[in-house]
């Protein structure tokens, strides 16, 4: 089968998922407050947001472990809110290690097939293939306590895929692992997900993880969807100030809004997107968009430098005490040690403005 026909077959088979005005309260806490979200067939969608914004709750609603107070969960256009968890066809990998301690790796993976009454020989064979797929072909007879954390999560992934689910749900599967394992496993999950073309929801509060893995990233805040867009768009054109500051680093520079232009750092730049009603605003800028040049009479000073490899991040304090972060290539930054007087400017491009923060 060629790649394109396979992709087509995958796209036809993969499921769509849709959350419609989902609401869920736990006592006084509102975990989900009218969440609307659509996941396209075969895509990997990352749910990103600060702790407690309802990411896990959304996932558990889809898996059938929670029930919404209001709203619908649609899979392939059909409301599944009444379907019990074990008939939802959703494979899930949990944040905590969730392998069955009394079963070997192979038997863990084969557990779902056993529930489907597949014969022993056949289900062990299929489980072995899946273990091979996650790179643990030789560890099948090990018990969970004999596997490392990363290996356990791989087995959990194989177990979640064993029943060929329509959607794959990953709830911070990498958060308990160390940085290096996290990186390799991240790539592996992505590769597998592409190969199988399975619609996937991936919860994380690590923005780098979300941006590097996902086809689209949904940023949540307090139980609602803030923005759902491809990583590059999310980073380059954040729809709201919250998204702008949550994804990547943003500096706030006070400016004065005048119609649709904003005066900042002695420059007049067009404002991008929606503008607040008040004239006193903050301009949001990414570190890589800030120009810094040495200037003897400049009233801004470099207060700190941090070496990041190819680039160096400068922290510049303005005369009024505002701090701005700027990324410069390391050889440019060599001339700008801490204490140097500098001048800061912005490129002539539309800028994002937000209400002044206090």
């Amino acid at each position, binding site marked *: 089968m060629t790649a394109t026909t396979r992709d087509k077959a995958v796209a036809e088979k993969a499921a769509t998922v849709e959350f419609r005005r989902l609401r869920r309260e736990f006592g006084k806490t509102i975990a989900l407050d009218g969440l609307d979200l659509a996941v396209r067939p075969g895509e990997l969608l990352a749910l990103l947001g600060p702790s407690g914004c309802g990411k896990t709750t959304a996932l558990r609603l889809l898996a059938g*472990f929670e029930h919404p107070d209001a709203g619908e969960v649609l899979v392939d256009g059909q409301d599944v809110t009444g379907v019990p*968890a*074990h008939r939802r066809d959703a494979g899930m990998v*949990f944040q905590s290690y*969730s392998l069955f*301690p009394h079963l070997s790796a192979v038997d863990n993976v084969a*557990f779902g097939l056993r529930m489907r009454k597949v014969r022993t020989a056949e289900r062990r064979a299929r489980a072995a293939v899946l273990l091979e797929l996650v790179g643990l072909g030789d560890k099948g007879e090990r*018990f969970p306590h004999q596997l490392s954390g990363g290996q356990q999560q791989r087995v959990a992934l194989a177990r979640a895929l064993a029943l060929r689910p329509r959607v794959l749900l990953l709830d911070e599967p990498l958060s308990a692992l160390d940085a290096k394992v996290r990186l390799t496993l991240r790539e592996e999950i992505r590769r597998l997900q592409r190969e199988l073309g399975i619609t996937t929801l991936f919860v994380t509060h690590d923005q780098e993880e979300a941006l590097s893995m996902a086809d689209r990233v949904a940023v949540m805040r307090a139980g609602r969807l803030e923005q759902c867009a491809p990583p590059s768009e999310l980073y380059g054109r954040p729809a709201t100030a919250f998204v702008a500051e949550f994804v990547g680093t943003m500096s706030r520079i006070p400016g004065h809004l005048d119609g649709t232009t904003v005066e900042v750092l002695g420059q007049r730049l067009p404002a991008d997107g929606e503008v607040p009603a008040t004239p006193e605003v903050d301009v949001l800028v990414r570190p890589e968009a800030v120009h810094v040049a040495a200037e003897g009479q400049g009233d801004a000073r470099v207060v700190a430098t941090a070496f990041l490899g190819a680039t160096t991040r400068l922290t510049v304090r303005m005369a009024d005490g505002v701090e701005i972060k700027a990324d410069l290539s390391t050889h440019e930054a060599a001339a700008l040690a801490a204490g140097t007087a500098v001048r800061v400017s912005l490129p002539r491009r539309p800028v994002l403005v937000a209400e002044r923060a206090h």
Partner: protein
Amino acid sequence: MARLNPWRWCVLACAGLYFLVPLAASVVFTVDVPGQGVTFDAYTHILSADGFLSSLLLSLELAAATIAAVLLLMVPAMVALRLGAPKLRPVVDVVCSLPLVVPPIALAAGMGTVLKWGPEHLSRTPLFQTFVAIQNPSFPFVLVLAYVVMALPFAYRALDAGLRAIDVPTLVEAARSCGASWPQALVRAVLPNLRGALLNTSFLTLALVLGEFTVAQLLGFQPFAVWIVTVSGSQAQLSVAVSVLSLLVTWALLLALAGFGGRSRTASRG
């Protein structure tokens, strides 16, 4: 394992002496009859005594029924508690500890009163038959009821320790996302990981039932413990022989249970 330095040896030896000396003395007393040398008469006498086998069997049946009842009652209840209402745990904790503060003699007296009062007031209802049936001397179910209550504190502690060691909600959810229904999730994912706790519960219940005297005696039944006291009343040597024997029987049963549990554990661990 910790190294056994002289100090620890000393403690171990003292503890050993404390347990073994009385036991050895008892054994010597039963086999060394003055004027006859070493003889096992006392033991052969017990084995041939009237009611040995029947009372032992009755005790074993009662123990089996009690273990089954305790496990069937407590395991689902405690798993449900973990999953559904973790906040209720302190309440259940207190309720399950209550039998510890009610002396068995009070329990027996209370049950005796009810058993007497019940049939009088219910003689015209089908409940009368129930009262008769649970007091059937060949299998007094009423004792099982009493033993379940008395075993409750131990069973609760043992099961609680087992449940604490595993993450029940996550295991159940993992099983459910693998297509297991509720009962399947419990039987296939949770219970196998509670084997140690189930075994401990069975241990404690077995030991309790085999050694229980007060309630059985007061309600007028004759399981092993009661039979031992009845038999031993007449002869000093016999009475000691009987308690040595009952100790050995209990040990043998506990070892059998442990061996059974241990074997299946290693088998499943491959």
